[in-house]
């Protein structure tokens, strides 16, 4: 699936938070961080409070602080449904290393 992307859609209870294409998404799944690449098997997973990282097709990253919810992934479409989501600015590499949650 080289070159393929995932259509990501993040919604919170109040509003749509973010949507767009991504190369890779890391979600704070129930049993630890779960990386999702294009072509991942269909999955419906509970997620817990933590940080969600999105790598867009240009390699840029953006992150969201999310509270509990679930994700649904199939046919390269990822839907993230959470209580609350807050965008956090991309910090330095070091800060990112130490800031990994879940």
């Amino acid at each position, binding site marked *: 699936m080289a070159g393929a992307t995932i259509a990501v859609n993040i919604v919170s209870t109040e509003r749509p938070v973010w949507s767009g294409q991504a190369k890779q998404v890391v979600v704070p799944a129930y049993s630890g961080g779960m990386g999702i690449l294009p072509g991942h098997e*269909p999955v*419906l997973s509970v997620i817990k409070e933590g940080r969600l990282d999105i790598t867009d097709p240009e390699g840029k990253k953006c992150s969201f602080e999310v509270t509990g919810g679930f994700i649904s992934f*199939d046919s390269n479409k990822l839907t993230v449904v959470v209580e609350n989501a807050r965008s956090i600015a991309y910090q330095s590499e070091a800060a990112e290393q130490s800031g990994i949650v879940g």
Partner: protein
Amino acid sequence: MVSHTHISHPIVKRGDGNPNVAVLALTADRGMAGAYTSSIIRETEDLLARLENDGKKPQLFVYGRRGVSYYHYRNRPLEQSWEGDTEKPGVEVADAISRALLDAYMKPSDKGGVSELYIVYTEFINMVVQKVRVLRMLPVEVIEEDKSHLNVPDTTTAPDVRPLYSFEPSLDEVLNTVLPRYVRSRIHECLFEAAASEVACRQNAMHTATENARDLINDLTRKLNASRQASITQELTEIIGSADALNKRKSRNAKWLRTRLQRLLMRPRSQSSVM
């Protein structure tokens, strides 16, 4: 998700013959909305009567101040009520309502739990048409694969072949997370529909009231003019009549009469038109 797994979560299936059912009526906080609240209450009463005929014991939940005061005035016990947000229902109130109702639903029947939940709300079709609807919210009906399911708000609508999902950490855990949220968002949707209908109803009612007031003003102005005209005519007739009578004898008082006539005709016309 539905097509591959046999789901036995209580939100989806319930068959313990518990006669207690919950009814949630969505009314308005404020009046001046025409028949909005009264048609909801009428439909609720119909539903309650129907449920009682079926041997069920309905418990009443009311949202909106008008509905609450209606039932308080009639000394009807309310299980729970919410007020103050009907025009702008936020997530919090949807959350509070769905939590209370799910709590009641998940409780065993001997502790006052309910086996079904009905919502009476007003569906917003457009600014002119709103329709009162009764929705059976719980238990959630699982709709089997069917061509007509496309316009049903199902939890999963994957095109063509439905993918085989894997569940993390387990099916039950996922359902425990997803289904309450599903219920909450459906309730929130109903609240939004109700709020939109309420605003539309109120606008229609205000529009009708304005038109009615305008008609009244026109009507009353016309009546005022007519009566003023009538009184002037009457007075003129009297003066002319008496002047004629006097003239026949002598024009002694002719000068006095002329001044009186002039004064009458010069009288300022008060409030001849409001519009």
